[in-house]
């Protein structure tokens, strides 16, 4: 590992904080996608269809 000098703590926390925020953002987007996907699957298994799907 390179020597980050006397201000290493600021550099490390900038990257760690960014990594946590990016991971949280990716997780939130994927979780939302999964939740909506389950909601759609439930509706479709209940036999609810759009009018355009019936033709």
């Amino acid at each position, binding site marked *: 590992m*390179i*020597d*980050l*000098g006397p*201000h*290493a703590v*600021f*550099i490390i*926390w*900038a*990257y760690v*904080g*960014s990594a946590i*925020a*990016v991971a*949280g*953002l*990716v997780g*939130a*987007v*994927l979780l*939302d*996608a999964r939740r*909506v*996907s389950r*909601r*759609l699957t439930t*509706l*479709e298994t*209940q036999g*609810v*269809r*759009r*009018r355009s799907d019936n033709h």
Partner: protein
Amino acid sequence: MSIDTKSRQGWFSRIAHPGQFMAWTQPLLWPLVGITAVLFVVGLYYAFFNSPEDYQMGETVRIMYVHVPNAWLSQFVYVIMAVSALGTLVWRHPLADVSMKAAAPLGAVFTALALYTGALWGRPTWGTFWEWDGRMTSTLVLLLIYLGIIALWRAFDDQLRAARVIAVFTLVGAVNIPIIKFSVDWWSTLHQPASVFRPDGPTIPPSILIPLFLMFFAFTFLFLVLHLKAMHTEIRRRKAMGLERRAAGALA
């Protein structure tokens, strides 16, 4: 003439129809994820192992590789939202409000990260985490605008009506973007003026410019991936809401 009109209609309907949009953008998602991952790996390698320290700032220059991309995205995402807002108000484009809604939380996080990394860079460089100067204050205002827009989306049950109100609010808020951009020129500020995109060329040496551009593209591609995925989810959410309304109507 008729051929031109037909091809134009074909292109427009492909973009405008949510189902078609999903169909042609879905295959793009994984290649974009791959490009983003490669850019981050190479960018982080350059940021930590293949770039020198700055002659003035020393090793803290490495904070720039996460600060500048987030600062750029904080404004770029808002410009995407403002263009989408025009699409909602002027053309009533079916995907415009989907794009607007999907971008807001992403913009808020990138803006928060720009402020956070800026504060961590400011302490060793300027001796303070925060200063109420033009650039920092206008970026904080941008974060508050993003949070206001997210709150507005949640306040409305009718998402089509919400889109019109939020589109107007977004366009009014867009006045803040040139204020952020030119604040370093208009007012006396701790924040340095532009050093990359300048009429006379960048003032940064290539050894620092290369990791900066790699991280800049890594974060930009990350935004593209997340925006696309969030748009797909929003389209599916609206389909689910439509089905729920239909089911409720059938029961009534």
